[in-house]
């Protein structure tokens, strides 16, 4: 039995290395995705154009503006006109926020218990607007801290942000991207390799030989486990070295759990190959059935907790959801196996169900 599996795995391996073009795509596509996501998927906003209407024109007001200028988020432009021009500034996108400092600012800042400045934000993109608002609050808070002449605040909150102190987006998406690439590549490759044999008629030639269905499947899937694993490692290393993503936990644990996830992805690919009969349909189905749910429903980008309840339930069926919990936990927090036992169990259950279904359908197709 071992020899026949080896014969099939060897043949599959030869298919892979003879097809240099696909091999390049298999390794180049994830790298390209990593770089695209890495530089484009940045949730921080920088260089916000801030228009300043300073009617106070005092050292105090300039200090406030300088405080804004000193943060990397804003680029300041002094406006000479009246605040009535703000509308056109927003419309022409010359400014995304405007700060209006009243002419009594310096006096009130010294004497009155409170003083106000007005902040206007372009909320055509509400997410960006709330970021801008938060940045402004931060700047103003720091200004109050250092320059307030009145007594200090009765208490203050000292924030410490754990696991990702600089709030870098790369920490968040590199692990997610590894999940996406692993499931996409493995499901795609397995579903194609089996439908290709069906389409070419070579499957029949194998089935008249004494090879057992499970030997065919194991033999065919083995080289792809290796390939997808190498792909995952490549992304992991690039993430660590290009985007400085930390690796706190045990690499052995991550490898073990990654292999479980690979099995889930491969079983999914197998299941697809038992349903469809052409390579083209297999490709479309495996891409759309892995890419969309993984991007939308796994917590890769959007937090699952803020989804409608029905989508939250649906997300339990998305294997990447568990793996993202696992890989973020191991890489960023240094989680142990016991802390990740639930997602790991769920992955095993999903794998078992899909594999059983795939094998059952595979045998059924033979008897037809």
């Amino acid at each position, binding site marked *: 039995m071992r020899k026949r599996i080896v014969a*099939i795995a060897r043949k599959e391996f030869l298919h892979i290395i003879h097809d240099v073009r696909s091999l390049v795509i298999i390794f180049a596509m994830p790298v390209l995705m990593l770089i695209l996501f890495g530089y484009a998927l940045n949730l921080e906003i920088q260089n916000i154009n801030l228009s300043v209407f300073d009617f106070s024109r005092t050292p105090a007001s300039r200090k406030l503006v300088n405080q804004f200028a000193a943060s990397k988020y804003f680029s300041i432009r002094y406006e000479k006109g009246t605040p009535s021009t703000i509308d056109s500034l927003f419309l022409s996108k010359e400014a995304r926020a405007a700060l209006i400092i009243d002419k009594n600012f310096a006096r009130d800042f010294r004497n009155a218990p409170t003083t106000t400045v007005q902040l206007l934000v372009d909320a055509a993109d509400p997410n960006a607007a709330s970021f801008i608002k938060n940045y402004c609050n931060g700047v103003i808070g720091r200004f109050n801290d250092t320059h307030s002449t009145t007594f200090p605040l009765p208490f203050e909150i000292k924030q410490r942000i754990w696991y990702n102190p600089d709030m870098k987006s790369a920490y968040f998406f590199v692990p997610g991207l590894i999940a996406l690439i692993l499931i996409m590549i493995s499901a795609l490759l397995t579903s194609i390799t089996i439908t290709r044999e069906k389409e070419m008629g070579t499957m029949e030639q194998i089935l008249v030989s004494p090879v057992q269905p499970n030997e065919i499947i194991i033999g065919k899937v083995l080289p792809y486990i290796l390939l997808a694993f190498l792909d995952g490692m490549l992304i992991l290393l690039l993430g660590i070295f290009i985007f400085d993503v930390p690796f706190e936990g045990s690499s052995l644990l991550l490898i073990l759990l990654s292999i479980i996830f690979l099995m889930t992805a491969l079983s999914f690919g197998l299941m697809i190959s038992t349903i469809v009969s052409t390579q083209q349909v297999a490709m479309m189905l495996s891409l759309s059935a892995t890419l969309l749910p993984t991007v939308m429903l796994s917590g890769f980008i959007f937090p699952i907790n803020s989804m409608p309840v029905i989508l939250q339930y649906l997300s339990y069926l998305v294997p990447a959801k568990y793996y993202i919990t696992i890989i973020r936990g191991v890489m960023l927090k240094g989680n142990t196996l016991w802390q990740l036992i639930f997602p790991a169990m769920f992955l095993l259950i999903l794998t078992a169900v899909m594999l059983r279904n795939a094998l059952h359908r595979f045998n059924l197709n033979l008897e037809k």
Partner: protein
Amino acid sequence: MKTDQIAVQTEDLTRRFGKFTAVKSATVTVMEGEIFGFLGANGAGKTTMIRMLCGLLKPSSGRATVSGFDVYRQSEQIKQNIGYMSQKFSLYDDLTISENIEFYGGIYNLPVETILRRKENLLQELGLQSEAEKLTRELPLGYKQRLALGCALLHDPPILFLDEPTSGVDPKARRSFWNLIYLTSQKGKTIFVTTHFMDEAEYCHRLSIMRDGEIIALGPPAKLKETHKKSSMQEVFISIVNGELPA
């Protein structure tokens, strides 16, 4: 080279797909060393018949043995004892000739030394020694087909099933393919072949003609021509398929 041993025997073998009956109670006996032809129009049930005998398809009813093994219960033993080649040449175009041969040796569990020895013999027979490391897609169709036959025979099975092995090949290549089949038969192998080329039918030791899933004529080509008073198999076939009774 016929002997008096039975290679394949079927009795009332039937296969239905839903309401459609692809093969209706087929009863044939094929002796060891015989070249047995299955003739019929497209969809007459030839391929279904072969697929049942190869263990690719379970019969709906009836009995059949291949090399003495029962098709229902002993399909594993049958698989070790048969070679199969279908109309689509079952070679991998993107693998080299040598890799294709080694793969077929591998899935039949042959020892590595046996595979390498038989590969050398096969390459020599086909005159392809210097092409062994070329991709199979570069081979002309006639060569591919003979290579596919060689792969199907690599594990030295006593019975060989050929499902329209020559479709899409030019007459010259067909001729040389049939020479190969004769050679194989002389080595004592039983050959079960489906075709719709009438000139090929003449080469068979015995023929059965199928129409709508039923075997409607059976016998050596000369005998069939005599009974139907026709000079070629072509005419015999047309008269039988059109439902004319022997004159």
